[in-house]
């Protein structure tokens, strides 16, 4: 691996600029003549707009213009869409209501955008926004999905009667019902997966620039996938054709999924720039982020896990109600369906599975993929049920899992997925050993002497990453393909630029992708630049989410590197008068194997560009492009074990130990992978212990609109994590990579809740396990 190659713990190249405050984020961008936008937003969760009066506001100082939805519609700007078609079990397509970038007829959640104010300064824009008079006819609101399905509840979109968007199923109902009926034991649980706010450190922002002379738009935006943004904005929202729209996502400070989607603000700022003739910048404040960033999770589930007398799972029946919010965000339909129910086999050999999912509109912010996207929800259902079943059956949680593990690969589950590789027992054993599981009873007894209730819980997760084969997702309803592109440009002096369609917003592409090149050609990482995030530089790409940058993005680079290497070898063979098949690349040199003939890398590059002496018929230059479409999802898996102490007097939980044993396939940079695991676990612990979005059920107002009420995990909430890796290389991509970006957030919540329920002796506990909830559950247990 060398000091910089695959497997080396190389310090992140990008951190110098991030840690010294030299990052360049969207809000750092300024262009001549730029003005500031503030959005007028709905104060009500559900209302008809009677009138919008901007006359007084328009006369205020510094105001350039105030624009609303009617003008936007008149200019032909389209509604926002969901890009993944789901069909209900009766065959009917999902019932999608209109999401106008600026509402002028009806508002459907607190924060719904109504008008844009453009002014010389942000303060003036804000002042004028407060002076815009919106007259509402307030309607009743509903925030909880199961409630929204009931008769007599407010109707949010005319298209979706009873607010039901789709009633979808996966798997075989008959065989699953039969298994439940004949089971020796059925563990049944009601499980809630709490709604979360994504909270990236950098809030969303956008700068729309219209150049009248060129009839061309530039959009700086906080995006995880600028090319998809450009595609959707031109193909569906009619902002501009692709060749007249450049989208740049510069440094982006975290996304966690929430920056995949196209929101109203970037569309409106581009349009407003043309209308007003000035560049328009908008930056979300933290309250706007709580109100309008796509939320995550929010499932209500009933699960039945059926066992035979030998403790083998013979059937799994799951019924889930998923809250979609007021509008269908870009991938909102895929998250609770194909990213969720397809993982309900977990690590287990289950002959019959049936999942039913109803997606429901409510008067809340749109819900979409958030770190893990569907797989945390599936894992939480599986692993809480598994642990509860072990307690009910009176057998050790590890043994119940071991008994049901899938042990031969490939393994076809009843819910689409074909697991290609894994060794679940290896991770389980590693976690059991690292946590000294056997020593737990003694630790519990010691804690009891201090009046503390100690508990231990585990979670064996599997997830699907790298999404995915384009043909497969296409057949399931995706509106896009999920390949990735790469371009490797070797300069005349041998330095290398790699253009990738994936996007880094904290993942460390500039380091790991450069390590790949260093490893391949033996050149220094310093001579490699990674270029991403600009549609004028990178031709096309699908962006970063679903832990796909390594498995898909780097695989595309490998394909391009293969082509570069082949051409470089041809040139070297020609120059050294050797056979092409004898050329090897080592330490930055091309050598003729078994001889002392060698050419430094830069000379081969130079030869390609001087083109004075190339093999006959060869084109000059050394630059190759590749598109890579994976043949399967990848399947990271692992085992997490958490140990807690609960203070029975207050219900406060302290995490005393957290062990993670993950199989991510091959690893490029273990330090970065560990960082991803640490961050993921912190987020999972946040969900399990602290975080929850609360709406007032009476009127749909967001109660958790600031950090005074929305509890984020802090350093002192977290233990020091013990992380290890077991490796079964992924057979489906050239690097054997599975992906590591989401596992921590997927595997950790059930491990933590299982530990708390073990400590208090009550399996009924919903996330977040706040002190009050744990205290109540502990008292109810006696």
């Amino acid at each position, binding site marked *: 691996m060398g000091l910089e190659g695959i497997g080396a713990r190389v310090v992140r190249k990008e951190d110098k600029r991030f840690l010294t405050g030299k990052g360049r984020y969207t809000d750092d961008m300024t262009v001549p003549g730029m003005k500031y936008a503030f959005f007028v937003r709905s104060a009500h969760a559900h209302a008809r707009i009677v009138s919008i009066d901007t006359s007084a506001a328009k006369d205020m100082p510094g105001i350039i213009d105030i624009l609303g939805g009617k003008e936007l519609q008149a200019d032909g700007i389209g509604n926002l869409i969901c890009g993944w078609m789901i069909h209900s079990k009766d065959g009917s397509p999902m019932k999608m209501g209109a999401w106008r970038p600026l509402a002028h007829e009806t508002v459907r959640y607190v924060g719904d955008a109504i008008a844009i104010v453009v002014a010389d300064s942000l303060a003036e824009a804000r*002042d004028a926004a407060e002076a815009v008079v919106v007259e509402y006819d307030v309607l009743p609101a509903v925030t909880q999905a199961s409630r929204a399905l009931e008769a007599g509840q407010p109707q949010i979109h005319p298209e979706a009667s009873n607010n039901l968007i789709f009633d979808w199923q996966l798997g075989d109902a008959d065989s699953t019902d039969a298994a439940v009926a004949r089971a020796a034991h059925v563990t049944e649980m009601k499980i809630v997966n709490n709604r979360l706010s994504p909270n990236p450190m950098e809030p969303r922002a956008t700068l729309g620039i219209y150049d009248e002379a060129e009839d061309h738009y530039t959009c700086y935006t906080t995006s995880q996938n600028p090319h998809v943004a450009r595609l959707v904005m031109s193909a569906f929202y009619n902002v501009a054709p692709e060749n007249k729209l450049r989208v740049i996502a510069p440094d982006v400070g975290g996304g966690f999924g929430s920056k995949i989607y196209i929101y109203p603000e970037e569309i409106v700022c581009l349009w407003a720039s043309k209308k007003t003739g000035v560049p328009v910048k908008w930056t979300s404040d933290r309250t706007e982020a709580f109100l309008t960033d796509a939320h995550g999770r929010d499932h209500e589930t009933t699960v039945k896990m059926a066992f035979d007398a030998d403790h083998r799972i013979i059937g799994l029946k799951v019924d889930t109600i998923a809250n979609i919010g007021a509008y269908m965000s870009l991938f909102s339909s895929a998250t609770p369906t194909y990213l969720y129910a397809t993982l309900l086999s977990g690590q287990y050999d289950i002959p019959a599975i049936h999942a039913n999912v109803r997606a429901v509109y409510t008067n809340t912010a749109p819900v979409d993929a958030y770190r893990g996207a569907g797989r945390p929800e599936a894992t939480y259902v599986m692993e809480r049920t598994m642990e509860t079943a072990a307690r009910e059956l009176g057998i050790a949680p590890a043994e119940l899992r071991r008994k049901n593990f899938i042990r031969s690969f490939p393994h076809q589950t009843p819910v689409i997925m074909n697991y290609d590789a894994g060794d679940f027992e290896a991770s389980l054993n590693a976690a059991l050993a690292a946590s000294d599981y056997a020593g737990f009873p003694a630790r519990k007894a010691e804690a009891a002497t201090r009046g503390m209730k100690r508990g231990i819980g585990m979670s064996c997760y599997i997830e699907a990453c790298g999404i995915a084969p384009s043909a497969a997702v296409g057949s399931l309803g995706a509106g896009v393909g999920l390949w990735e592109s790469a371009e490797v440009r070797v300069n005349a002096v041998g330095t290398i630029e790699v253009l990738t369609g994936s996007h880094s917003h904290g993942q460390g592409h500039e380091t790991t992708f450069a390590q790949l090149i260093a490893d391949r050609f033996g050149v220094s990482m310093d001579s490699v630049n990674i270029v991403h995030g600009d549609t004028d530089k990178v031709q096309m790409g699908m962006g970063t989410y679903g832990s796909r940058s390594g498995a898909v993005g780097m695989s595309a680079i490998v394909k391009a590197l293969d082509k570069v290497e082949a051409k470089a070898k041809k040139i070297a063979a020609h120059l050294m008068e050797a056979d092409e098949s004898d050329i090897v690349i080592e330490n930055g040199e091309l050598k003729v194997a078994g001889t002392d003939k060698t050419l430094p890398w830069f000379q081969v590059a130079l030869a390609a560009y001087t083109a004075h002496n190339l093999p006959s018929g060869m084109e000059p230059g050394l630059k190759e492009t590749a598109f890579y479409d994976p043949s399967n999802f990848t399947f990271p898996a692992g085992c997490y074990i958490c140990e807690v102490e609960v203070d029975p007097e*207050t219900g406060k939980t302290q995490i005393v130990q957290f062990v993670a044993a993950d199989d991510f396939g091959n690893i490029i940079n273990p330090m970065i992978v560990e960082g991803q695991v640490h961050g993921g676990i912190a987020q999972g612990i946040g969900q399990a212990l*602290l975080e929850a979005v609360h709406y007032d059920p009476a009127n749909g107002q967001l109660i958790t609109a600031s950090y005074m*009420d929305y509890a984020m995990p802090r350093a002192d909430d977290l233990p020091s994590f013990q992380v290890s890796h077991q490796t079964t290389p992924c057979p489906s991509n050239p690097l054997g990579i599975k992906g590591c970006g989401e596992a921590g957030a997927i595997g950790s919540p059930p491990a933590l809740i299982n530990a708390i329920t073990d400590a208090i002796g009550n399996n009924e506990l919903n996330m977040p396990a*706040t*002190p009050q909830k744990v*205290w109540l559950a502990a008292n109810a247990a006696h």
Partner: protein
Amino acid sequence: MYATNYHRASSVQDALALKSSTDETKYLSGGMTLIATMKQRLAAPSDLVDLRHVADMKGITVSGRSVHLGAGTTHYDVSASAALKSVCPAICHLASHIGDPHVRHMGTIGGSVANNDPAADYPAALLALDAVIVTDRRQISAAEFFTGLFETALEEDEIVTAVTFEAPEKAGYSKFANPASRYAMTGVFVAKGAGGVRVAVTGAGADGVFRHAGLEQALSANWSPEAVAGVTVDSSNLMADIHASAEYRANLVKVMAKRAVAAA
């Protein structure tokens, strides 16, 4: 934030004069509450009179067991004062758990008591210590000073200049922090002194900080953590929000009282 005019007061008299010469004026101390509220446009003073440079309002003096805390003393200075620690370590401990280091180096005791947030820590200490709040024109006992949620006995232009109290024989503070804000979800300050036992509760009362008679009686009879066990805490006058019900807060009052006595 709306535009505002800034004035720096050099003395208490100067501050009063500046305040009377402009309308919609507010005093500014650490700004840890006021500036945040202004940034959210929930407060819109036309003028700010900064009290942080009034020398008379700063500093900690301990003579015998008499304690004088200038209103402009930061939470950090209270937490770190050796003189104060030697007579009343409980208040140093309390100050060391307010907010984070930034807040502790900016926020002041005067600003905190004038603001009287129902979840703030100092009100519990001042009420249990039977402290006196000194202003530019009078002295007000803590019992009379804290009148309700964000309400005090201060007149519109009155300035808190100091807080004084007699250090008790024993005192302890135990705080259960709100998981999100880390203000007190329930905090109990217990003090045993010449005037008997006083127990004050913050973060829990529907009308703000309050004394608990049942706990005071039990602890007067038997100053020990165990004495709390038999006390009933009525939840009917307690706050309820998304973080904690009134019943849960009633439980926390007892548990925090017990731990405060143990720490005293």
